[in-house]
């Protein structure tokens, strides 16, 4: 399982990374591996506002369709439009080109309350056990 040391993580297997005042978010390497080949990603619209843990989109693979949830509450500022034509980017590069959304968080300080890479690794290990 690959991890991004700069990112923080949720129990729903999303990652979040600070970029200036905004947060970039996607699904983890572990999540993409569990889903296997991703065939469709449904994303919100720029300007949509969500609370923490709200479902903001759907990632559909050949095996399943899963909701993806906001790590923190905020307003969507960008979506990864490449995914419309190339959803497999989420498989190939989950922490890079396979990002899902950028958003402006309501409470930026809450970022520190998310799991860091080590904590997430331990969480996954426990979940698998």
């Amino acid at each position, binding site marked *: 399982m690959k991890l991004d040391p700069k990112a923080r993580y949720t129990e729903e297997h999303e990652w979040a990374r600070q970029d200036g005042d905004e947060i970039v978010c996607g699904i983890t390497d572990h999540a993409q591996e569990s889903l296997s080949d991703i065939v469709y990603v449904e994303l*919100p*619209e720029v300007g949509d506002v969500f609370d923490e843990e709200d479902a903001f989109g759907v990632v559909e693979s050949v095996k399943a*369709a899963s*909701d993806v949830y906001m790590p923190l509450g905020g307003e969507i500022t960008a979506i990864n439009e490449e995914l419309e034509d190339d959803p497999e980017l989420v498989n190939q590069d989950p922490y890079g080109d396979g990002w899902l959304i950028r958003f402006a968080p309501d409470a930026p300080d809450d970022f520190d309350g998310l799991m860091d890479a080590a904590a997430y690794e331990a969480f996954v290990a426990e979940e698998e056990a």
Partner: protein
Amino acid sequence: MLAAIGARSIKDLFDDVPERVRFPELDLPAALAELDTRWELESLAGSNLTASDCACFLGAGAYNHFVPSVVDAVLNRGEFYTAYTPYQPEISQGTLQAIFEYQTMICDLTGMSVSNASHYDGATATAEAVITAINVHRLKRRKVVVSPFVHPEYRAVVRTYTQGMGLTIVGDENGGSAGLTDLLDEETACLIVQYPDFLGRVEDLSGLAEATHAAGALFVVVTDPIALGMLKPPGEFGADIVVGEGQGLGAGLNFGGPYLGFFASRKKYARKMAGRVVGQTVDAAGERGFVLTLSTREQHIRRERATSNICSNQGLVVLAAAVYMAALGKSGMRQVAELCYHKAHYAQQRIGEINGFSLLDDKPFFKEFVVRCPEPVQRINDYLLDEWDIIGGYDLGLDYAHLQDHMLLCVTEMNSRDEIDVLVEALGEVTS
């Protein structure tokens, strides 16, 4: 078997049913022998009048078109007739291929890129188009503009189907006095028109399509697939979703059902449409095969997020439509459409000349047209049926206050010139 479950008698078995309703006295006649039963049923069936017993000029959504024998010959094959829903491609190649071919031909006819495997009828397909449009806009737009000349029953079904969704459906009140384009705004999810409209008229809808798109809404066209044999496909003038009744494609009148709702859309809305899509692929050995490519994923794995509870399709009627379209081919479809068109125009011209009858307007039409009658439509229809064995047209006064004493007549390839001439003679008698 009673002993095995610990019951002593049949009576014992029904102990849980309250005594007063357990074995009620039924006021039934004595049992009949098989032959007597057959006579009785035949006599009952004999009081039905079917479109093959008389000349039929009634349309209004259910059309008397020719069904070639090859349709039933294929339909009655046990492999198709008894097949259940094709979840397992390894045992359903025939059904899946038929649906795939049906979808392909519906796309060709409508000018759309994706067709689903069908809905129950034209009315429910129209309602599903509304739900698709609402979901394309992520439930942020809840207004639907509908032309008053979309089939009245379809409009009623759309309202029934979407009740509780908090939609505002406008455009068809007061006989459609408000202009449809004036009703378009940033709340509008879609605009629905019918082509040819319920009164049979064919209009250039490209301006309406542009106005609809300018408002960011979807342009939904309800259409008659038989008309598309000669008319421009809705996809060529801006339709985003094309739906309609497919009964005319080889299904016969069937006493009002089962019918066939077809549903096609632009590719980008495929994920939001209900139902299922069959696709072509290759198997492990590289051979062509067919599978459910897009199957109501919401209903299987994310039920709480499902946008529609439709997870079925009209398998046999789809098959009839596929066989019908394949048997006729492109030129045959055009020929049927042209026969309808020319015969209807002959009838319209002759009826327009009858003293007391007049035409509603001179707009282009396909196989249906409206005539203003000198007497109530019901009275004329009773006379036609009783005296001439003719099934007359549809009484538009039932749905449109301003069209009292107006009859919607339908002429198809099934109506011979003689039949039309007899109709003209009969109508001439009404006023003489």
